[in-house]
């Protein structure tokens, strides 16, 4: 089953075409890497899929709903973790969990259960009443991810989730992503760490608003005859400059 299908999805700002007729699909439980240089159009594409921005033309379904007509239904079924830290630093760990749980409509009784469950999974019971601002960055990041998927979304969008995080924490973070994917949560992740791209099941690389490459890491290496993602990325980036 496809969790995302996009068909010639386009977004124009005046004369500028930010996203130019992109078509792709993402299967359930897949880890889908969404790559591209800054300004290639990945943020705009993601904003359209999450209902933050209306497409100029084209079709797309997210979690089985149309992105024009059923934005509200889509919002209930997706999770989102932004590039900037998405928790409140001046709220405690449990206040953050309760707030986002409430926002996603988890009932009060379930929420209490869910909160303690989540705290014990992350080993954060001790700091439940500590302000999030005083936690180490790695913990915050893991907490933010857990909060983003606590309402059991069909799909979670991660916008450069590991920016500024040390390599060990990044590894642990990817382990959490794998665990979530094993439970059937689809992961849509943007990153500019090329080694992380190798962790994905499938990758799309954007350049100039178009999808320049799409496939598994293995397929892309063969197609571009390059040893790793970094080389492919450079080839595409250079290609887009000369074009």
């Amino acid at each position: 089953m496809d969790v995302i299908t996009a068909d010639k999805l386009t977004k124009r700002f005046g004369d500028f075409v930010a996203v130019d007729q992109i078509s792709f699909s993402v299967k359930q439980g897949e880890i889908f890497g969404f790559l591209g240089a800054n300004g290639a159009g990945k943020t705009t594409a993601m904003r359209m899929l999450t209902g933050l921005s209306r497409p100029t033309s084209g079709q797309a379904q997210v979690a089985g709903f149309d992105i024009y007509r059923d934005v509200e239904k889509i919002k209930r079924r997706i999770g989102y973790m932004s590039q900037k830290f998405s928790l409140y630093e001046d709220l405690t760990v449990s206040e953050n969990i309760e707030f986002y749980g409430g926002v996603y409509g988890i009932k009060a009784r379930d929420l209490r259960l869910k909160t303690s469950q989540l705290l014990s999974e992350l080993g954060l019971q001790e700091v439940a009443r500590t302000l999030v601002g005083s936690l180490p960055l790695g913990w915050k990041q893991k907490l933010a991810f857990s909060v983003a998927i606590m309402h059991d979304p069909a799909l979670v969008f991660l916008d450069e989730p590991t920016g500024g995080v040390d390599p060990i924490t990044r590894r642990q973070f990817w382990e959490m992503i794998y665990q979530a994917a094993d439970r059937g949560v689809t992961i849509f992740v943007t990153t500019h760490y090329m080694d992380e791209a190798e962790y994905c099941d499938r990758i799309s690389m954007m350049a100039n608003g178009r999808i320049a490459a799409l496939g598994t890491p293995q397929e892309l290496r063969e197609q571009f005859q390059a040893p790793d993602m970094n080389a492919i990325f450079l080839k595409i980036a250079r290609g887009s400059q000369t074009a």
Partner: protein
Amino acid sequence: MRQLRIVILKEFYHILRDSRTLLILFGLPLVQILLFGFAITNEIKGAKMAVVDASGDDISREMVQRLTASDYFIYQGRAGSREEVLHLFREGKIKMALFIPPNLQRDFYHGEATEIQLLADATDPNTATTLVNYATAIINDYQLEKLDAQDAPFQIKTELTMRYNPLLKSVYLFVPGVMTVILMLVSAMMTSIALTREKELGTMEVLLVSPLQPPFIIIGKVIPYFILGMVNATLIVTLGVLVFGMPVQGSWLLLGAETILFILTSLALGILISTRTDSQQVAMMMSLMALMLPTIILSGFIFPIESMPRPLQLLSNIIPAKWFIIILRNIMLKGVGFDFVWRETLILFGMFSFFTLLSIRNFKTRLA
């Protein structure tokens, strides 16, 4: 409804955890009202005065006694000469001096023209003018009394009544003013900062992706500031009434309703500012420059609008605070009802609607 509740609860956490916000919310109104009430005042009490009395007769002595018997002047002492007085002025020991010419009593009873000279320290022109006015009034009073005793055939006495504020208490002026400034500060500035903070930190995007309805996000974040505005208004009026004897002649209900309207107008302004910028710094600067300064200077709170140059008078019409201060003074001091403030109320309501519509439009274009 539950969504609204959790957003409100969260905003209260933000407010209660930030000591600076709390200080602005509750420290500032308290300090301002006490400052304006006690320290900054137009009334003058106990100004020190020296006298050069060249007559030394009954009339001159009585006149000096009259002056110093009032609360306004304190007799600093007799000075021998003009030089001595000037010296006292330079040393800052006196604020005013009185020169009485020789033979005052004789000239007075013989209907000769006499002149008394008042010298005032005009380094502070307002104080000097007030002092001279007080002294002149007291001396004129005394003179009339003396003539009266002599049964002069013609005399015109003026009797002054200062309506609505018979004692000319400056606190009557300041309570509505401080209330307006504080409500503007809490409602507009704090709201615009609270909203831009979410944008700056990136949490606004997370909220917009969530099932929360955008209007709920805004309303939920704004309600706490509405409540705090009401608390502040109550605090200021209570202080005014209990500590400074500020009257509330008109209807409390009308006062409350007008206050709510002004808070809503300020909140709408705060939201409007937050739709124009993504940075807390800019929001604060915009609030201070575009709202606080005009509110303090052009609203008639401190400087009378009538004495401003024409362009500024026209500009003052677009300041919501101006209309609110007029309404407050009308209700609190004159005790008039809605039929006397409906025009100002309508203007405020128009401003509120305009800012709200503009905010909604800006918000929508941002999301498109």
